[in-house]
C-alpha cells in the first residue's frame, strides 16, 4: 500500500526520500511567499525586511530639521509655515470704513488667496515632478537618510499633535498608527496598527498624522515606491 502511494508521487521517482523532502520544503516556502504577497507588507510581523526602531527623545533632535544636511533638499520653501504670510495679507482690508475700498480690499484678499493656492499647487507639482526621479528604484535604503527622514516626520507630527493633558486617562497608554508615504511624499495609507483604548487619544493621534501630510518626497532614496512608518504615540509624558 505504501509503495503504491509513493509511486503516484507527482515529483516522479520511485519514492526517493530526498525528493519528498525537497518537494515538501519547496511547497512550504512557496506557501509562505504567497501569504506575504496577499497581505500588505506594512504589518510588522509579516515584514521580511529589517524593522528599524528610531528612538528620538534626546535634545539634539529638537533642533530644527533644516539643520540636518540630508534634509536640506527636502525642506522646500513651499512647506514652510503659511499662516504668517496669510495674516500679513489680511491686514490689508482692515480699518477701511468706505464700502468701495472695502470691496477692493476684499478683492485683494481674494486675489492673494487665489495666488497663494496656485503657488501651493505649483509647489506641490514641482515637488512631485522635479524632486522625485523617474529612474529605477534604489535597491536598498540608506540608513542615514531614513533616520533623517524619520526625524523630520517625528518633528512635524509632534508639532501637529494637540491634546490637553486633562483628557488623559490615569494609566499609560500607547497608540500605533501605520502610515505609508509615497515617493512624492503623499500619505498613501494610514491606519491604526494598535488602538490605545482611549478614543480621544486615538483621534488626536490620527489628526496629527493627517494634518502633517503631505510629507517631503523620498527624493530617489529608499525603496523607490514608498516607505512604511509606524508611529507610536505615548501618553506617559503627558500625565
Amino acid at each position, binding site marked *: 500500500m505504501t509503495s503504491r502511494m509513493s509511486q503516484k508521487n507527482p*515529483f*516522479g521517482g520511485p519514492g*526517493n526520500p530526498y*525528493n519528498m523532502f525537497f518537494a515538501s520544503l*519547496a511547497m512550504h*516556502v*512557496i506557501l*509562505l*511567499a504567497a501569504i*506575504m*504577497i496577499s497581505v500588505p*507588507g*506594512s504589518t*510588522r510581523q509579516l*515584514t*521580511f*525586511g*529589517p*524593522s*528599524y*526602531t*528610531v528612538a*528620538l*527623545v534626546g535634545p539634539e533632535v529638537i533642533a530644527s530639521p533644516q539643520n540636518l544636511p540630508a534634509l536640506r533638499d527636502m525642506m522646500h520653501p513651499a512647506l514652510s509655515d*503659511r499662516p504668517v504670510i*496669510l495674516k500679513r495679507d*489680511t*491686514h490689508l482690508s*482692515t480699518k477701511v470704513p468706505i464700502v468701495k475700498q472695502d470691496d477692493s480690499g476684499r478683492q485683494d484678499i481674494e486675489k492673494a488667496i487665489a495666488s497663494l493656492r496656485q503657488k501651493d499647487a505649483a509647489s506641490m507639482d514641482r515637488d512631485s515632478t522635479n524632486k522625485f526621479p523617474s529612474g529605477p528604484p534604489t535597491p536598498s*535604503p540608506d540608513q542615514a537618510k531614513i533616520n533623517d527622514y524619520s526625524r523630520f516626520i*517625528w518633528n512635524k507630527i*509632534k*508639532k*501637529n*499633535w*494637540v*491634546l*490637553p*493633558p*486633562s*483628557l488623559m486617562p490615569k494609566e499609560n497608554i500607547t497608540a500605533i498608527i501605520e502610515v505609508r508615504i509615497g515617493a512624492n511624499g503623499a500619505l498613501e495609507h494610514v491606519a491604526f496598527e494598535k488602538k490605545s483604548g482611549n478614543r*480621544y487619544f486615538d*483621534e488626536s493621534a*490620527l*489628526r496629527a498624522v*493627517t*494634518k502633517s501630510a503631505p510629507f517631503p518626497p523620498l527624493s530617489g532614496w*529608499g*525603496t*523607490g*515606491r514608498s*516607505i*512604511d*512608518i*509606524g*508611529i*507610536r504615540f*505615548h501618553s506617559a*509624558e*503627558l500625565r
Partner: protein
Amino acid sequence: MKQSHRWFLFFLSACLFFCGVNRDSAAKVYIDIDAPGFQQFPIAVCDLQAKKIPPDRSAELPSTLSDHIRSLLTLTGLFHLLDPKSFLEGVEPGTQTVRFSDWTMIGADFLVRGGVVFGVRDLTVDCQLYDVSRGLLLFNKSYAGSPDDVKTLARAVVTDILLALTGDEGDFNTKIAFVMKKQNHSDIFTINYDGTDLKPVTSHQSIVVAPRWSPDGQYMAFTSYRAGRPEVYLYSLKTGKEKKIAAFKGLNLCGAFSPDSKKLLLTLSKDDNEEIYVLDLDSQQLSRLTHNSAIDVSPTWSPDGKKIAFVSNRSGSPQIFVMDADGGNVKRITFEGNYNTSPSWSPRGNRIAYEGLINHRYQIFTVDEDGGNLLQLTFDNADNEYPSWSPSGRQIVFSSKQETAHRISIMNFNGLNVRVLKESKVPAVMMPAWSPRLK
C-alpha cells in the same frame, strides 16, 4: 536533469522572486512620540450668519452670540481660538461647502460655523462642528431659544462641542459659592462659572464660612456664628429655607457631603477636642470617625465614597491624612512642609488638592491619594488658599490674597491658564466652593 530537480528549482526561483518583490516595501521604521506639541485644540469659530434680521432685533446679535461661544471655549482652557482675521474662507449665508484645506492651512483642527434664523418670538441657531484635518462633520444641531438670552444658547452650543471633543460636558452649568467678608460680617454668595449673575445666599449679619454644595445640587451646608458660636446650617437651594443641623456644645464646623448627598461630614468638639463625625441627614444619626487626642478637621469624601481625606496635627504639624469611610486605616499623605490643610478630592478620583505653607506663603498643591506625585500649582507672591475642584476635574478654583487685593481665581488642574473670576479689596472674597453640574 531529473524532473523532480526541475520542479524544485522552479519553486525555489519563484519564492526568491516573490521575496524580492516584497522586499521593496518591507523596511519599516518605528517612531516614538511621547508628548504633544500643543495642549490646546486650535479651533476656528466663524461668525454665525443670518439671512434676515427683523428690524426690532439688533443686527449685532449673531456676532454677539459667536463672541459668547468664543469666550466660553476660552474659559475651558482646552482651546486656542484662532483670530478671525486669519480666516481664508468667508462664510456667506447659505454656503454649504467647506474647503477644509483653507482651515488646515491656517492651523485649525476644528471649525465651528452656522446660522441664525429669527422667528416671531424666538430664534434658532444651526451649528456645525467640523474636524477639518480629517474632513469630518462631527455634529450639526439646532438650538432654539430667546433672543434676549443668547448666553444660554451659547452655553448649549459649547457644551455640545465639549461633549463631542472630550466626552464630557464641561463646567458650564455650574456656579461657584464663596464668602464675602466686610469688617466683622461675612456671607455666602454664588456666581456663575463665566463670572455673571452674582447672588447672595445667606444674610446672617454674622460670620458665615465654609460653603459646601451637595452633589445633587439641592442643598448647601455652611458654618455660621449667628448664635455666637460656630454651628452648621443646611440651606435648600430649591426653597431658600435653611435649618440648623449641628449645634452641639463647643465647635460645630461644616465638612463635605457624601457622594450620594445623604450624609455630611462634621468637625465637632463636643467630646473635648476636635474630631470628625458623619451625620446621616435623614435619620440625624451621628457617628464618630476619628479617635485621637490631636485636632482632626476639614474632612472631604473621595468621589466613590470609600475614603475620607482630612487634616490632623497628630504628627506634630497640620498634615493631610486619608482614612477609610468608617474611620479605619488612617495614612498620612503629605510630608513636605509644616502646614498643609484644606484638602479637596478630585471628582476624577486620583488627586487631592490642598494648600501648603512654603516660603512664608500659602500655595496650592496636588498629590495622589497615596502621597505620590506631589505637584505645586501656584508660585506667585500671594497667599493662595481653599482649592476646590470643578465637576469635570479639569479646573480648580481657589482664593488668592495679595496685599489688600482678594481674588477668586480659576486655573487648569495643572496650574496653567489662571483667570480671575472675582476681584475685590473690600469686601474680601475667599473660601470658594465649586458646585456640581446644576440642572
